[in-house]
């Protein structure tokens, strides 16, 4: 008897986020969904977390990292990626809430990497007309991760503590098929960066829960204020994602049109194809 409807071996053998620790009460079973499969999560009084496939009861490996619970339905071949900044003592690590979105995980990741939508979707915050130009930036694959660097955007209100506009430099990193991390110059210290991470929980091919982590240098704002800002930005992206057709990400380069500013997403789509990821995509 097969308990899994997902046939994507590559996706099955990855670690995936399934919950934020703060959302997991003690001694209360929670059902979460991953790759089309229901999983029972339980956090014991000793804070040990267990995960079992809901039907068969098969026990799954669990790790907690970045304030979230991660599991795998297969045999992970890679360790979960690192975010060294998370452990810096003067960082604020804030978990923004989990948001369900009716779209595939790769579409959500691609939106996170996208620079051209700032003036239209996040107008007044991360962008504004007429500062819409995206100059060429560098895209490489390093140690099996997609890196886009030298990305520049003029932002009227780049972060919670920014009170004027300035040109922000971004670095994007895709260390996992359904996760992306962005690094942006800190308003307080130009030698360091604020880190925002998106961890997408691929529930079904066209349904996800988006988890976000803000790891920022900000001594003055409250956790709630940092959370509210991230949620506001994501609330602006959500209706765009839910209005994309098709919901799955087409990997064939001829399926959709390209502009030079899309170099990062082109690399991401090629990388998914090279990895053999199928869940949430329309293979080339």
């Amino acid at each position, binding site marked *: 008897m097969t308990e899994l409807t997902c046939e994507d071996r590559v996706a099955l053998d990855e670690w995936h986020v399934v919950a934020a620790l703060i959302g997991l009460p003690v001694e209360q079973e929670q059902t979460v969904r991953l790759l089309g499969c229901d999983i029972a999560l339980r956090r014991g009084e000793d804070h040990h977390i267990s995960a079992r496939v809901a039907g068969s009861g098969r026990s799954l490996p669990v790790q907690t990292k970045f304030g979230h619970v991660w599991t795998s339905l297969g045999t992970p071949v890679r360790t979960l990626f690192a975010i060294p900044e998370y452990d810096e003592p003067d960082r604020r690590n804030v978990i923004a809430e989990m948001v369900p979105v009716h779209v595939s995980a790769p579409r959500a990741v691609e939106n996170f990497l996208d620079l051209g939508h700032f003036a239209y979707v996040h*107008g007044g915050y991360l962008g504004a007309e007429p500062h819409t130009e995206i100059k060429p930036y560098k895209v490489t694959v390093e140690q099996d991760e997609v890196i886009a660097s030298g990305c520049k955007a003029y932002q009227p209100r780049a972060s919670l503590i920014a009170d004027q506009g300035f040109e922000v430099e971004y670095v994007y990193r895709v260390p996992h098929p359904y996760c992306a991390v962005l690094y942006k110059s800190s308003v307080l210290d130009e030698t360091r960066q604020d880190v925002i991470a998106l961890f997408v929980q691929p529930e079904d091919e066209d349904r996800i829960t988006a988890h976000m982590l803000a790891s920022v240098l900000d001594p003055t704002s409250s956790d*709630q*204020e940092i959370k*509210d800002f991230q*949620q*506001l930005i994501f*609330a*602006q992206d*959500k*209706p765009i994602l*839910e209005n994309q057709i098709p919901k799955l990400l087409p990997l064939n380069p001829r399926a959709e049109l390209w502009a030079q500013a899309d170099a990062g997403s082109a690399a991401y789509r090629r990388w998914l194809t090279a990895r053999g990821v199928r869940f949430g995509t329309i293979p080339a």
Partner: protein
Amino acid sequence: MITLFGTELSVDAYRVRLFLALLALPYRRQESNILRLDDDGTVLEGSDRILIHLAHRHNLSGSWRLYGSWLDVGRDLPSRKLFRQMDEHLWFAEQEGPGWLCGGHPTIADLACFPAVVLSESAGVSRLPFPALRRWSDRIRQLPGFVAMPGIFV
């Protein structure tokens, strides 16, 4: 001076922020989980009561003040059945004039219903079968002073 206590992502608070913007009324904002308005000492809670108060005290022409039973409808949205009724009502209003819920011009009835209508898709209610409702949404977005909230495009 008016102080509005609310949050950016609250639909209820947005109804009030939208009316304040359309009336071009200056106000201070304070973060709060409970929606409240302090208008120079008069304190009110609940978006309906706040909309009615603002319409009476600050709208000199009185044109915004009508609402009929639409505030009640606003609370039950989104609902396919109510959307059908609203679409029919608005379609016939369009035959005879500009197409607003009450009285042939924008009123707080429109503001009370607008956010739930325009955010209905994320609540699983499609607006595809309701063309008059969609044109009405655009009409509201084109009012001078209109402000959006996350999820609503200008």
